[in-house]
């Protein structure tokens, strides 16, 4: 409750142009937004850019935050839209995947955990961006389908269907990894 009041105070002060108050908000949510951006873009450097863009956009759009949803949900929506725009910018999902492969091909992959992490992110990048965003919000950020639907601006059933499809694909692609084989 105290944290919520504190957040409301930061939001109110940020609306008046208080940069210190906004920096406090950034500090609270920066890891969350970076994680989302990385899951969506598959690139560490692009995730940093998208996260920065997200917070800058949030600062300029603060008057549009009515307080009827959680601030984190509102921030997620901005970040998700930025990520989807980023994906549009590079135009093709295949291109995003290729970028990710190129960026990570020289990464030193030593132990099994690193191999798995590498394969999982690769599989995520192969997903359709809409399916990826639905899965990232629900599986990684632990949001309900209803919350994800609000952030993505679509129906809850659409989110459920996207999550189901994404999971089915990931199972197909990652099963060989679990069984000790190689993943494409």
């Amino acid at each position, binding site marked *: 409750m105290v944290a919520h009041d504190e957040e409301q105070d930061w939001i109110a002060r940020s609306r008046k142009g208080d*940069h210190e108050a*906004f*920096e*406090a908000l*950034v*500090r609270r949510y*920066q*890891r969350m937004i*970076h*994680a989302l951006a*990385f*899951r969506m873009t598959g690139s*560490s450097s692009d*995730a940093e850019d998208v*996260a*920065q863009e997200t*917070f*800058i956009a949030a*600062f*300029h759009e603060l008057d549009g935050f009515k307080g009827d949803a959680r601030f984190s949900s509102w921030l997620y929506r901005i970040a998700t839209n930025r990520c989807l725009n980023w994906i549009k910018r590079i135009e093709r999902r295949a291109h995003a995947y290729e970028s990710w492969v190129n960026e990570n091909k020289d990464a030193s992959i030593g132990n099994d*955990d690193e191999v*798995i*992490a590498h394969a*999982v*992110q690769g599989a*995520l990048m192969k997903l359709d961006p809409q399916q990826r965003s639905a899965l990232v919000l629900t*599986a*990684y950020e632990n949001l309900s389908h209803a919350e994800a639907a609000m952030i993505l601006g679509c129906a809850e059933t659409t989110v459920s269907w996207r999550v189901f499809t994404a*999971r089915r694909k*990931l*199972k197909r692609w*990652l*099963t060989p*990894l*679990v069984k000790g084989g190689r993943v494409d």
Partner: protein
Amino acid sequence: MTDPELNELLRKSPTPSRSDAYWSEFPSLVSCGIARAAPQSVFERKRFRFGFATAFATGLTVVCLLVGFWFGARRNQNAARLEDTAQARKLIAELTTLFPHQLEAIVIENGRTELRLSEKADVLESAAVLLRICGKTGCARVITFSGQQVRVNEQWCDVLVDSRGNVIVAGPRFVWSKARDASSGTQIDAKSLGDML
């Protein structure tokens, strides 16, 4: 693979780890980004306003000039028309005095004035009409009376004036009036001078 197995696998994919220095600097990076964006947007707004004001002022000037030209041209046209009408009235008054009931038409074309006179004094001096006819070969002004014939586009046409002073030019293949112009390829303008005689 079951759903819990997949969840477990997904969680094994961590996001890239970043240094504490990055996390402590990131908020100030965002603030710098905001500060960088703000003057630019103010500058852009100013530039937009300046551009808009310039375009508006230019547009307004052009509109004012066009309106001025239009009024000037219209005034000149009206003045010319009045002069035309006055000259036509004067001319027809003088010529009907000289040739009573003989004057069929006065045709002014290419700077030449041609009088069409009847051999007998049998022309009914009804309502006088001033016509301006523009065809392929140029424009001609014709002063005549209602009921007389004029040549329009190689055709002889009847000029008629109704009781309200409306002029009708009727040819074998067209009928012209101010309300209904069916004279293809020929521009006609007409004014009744009848009440002046």
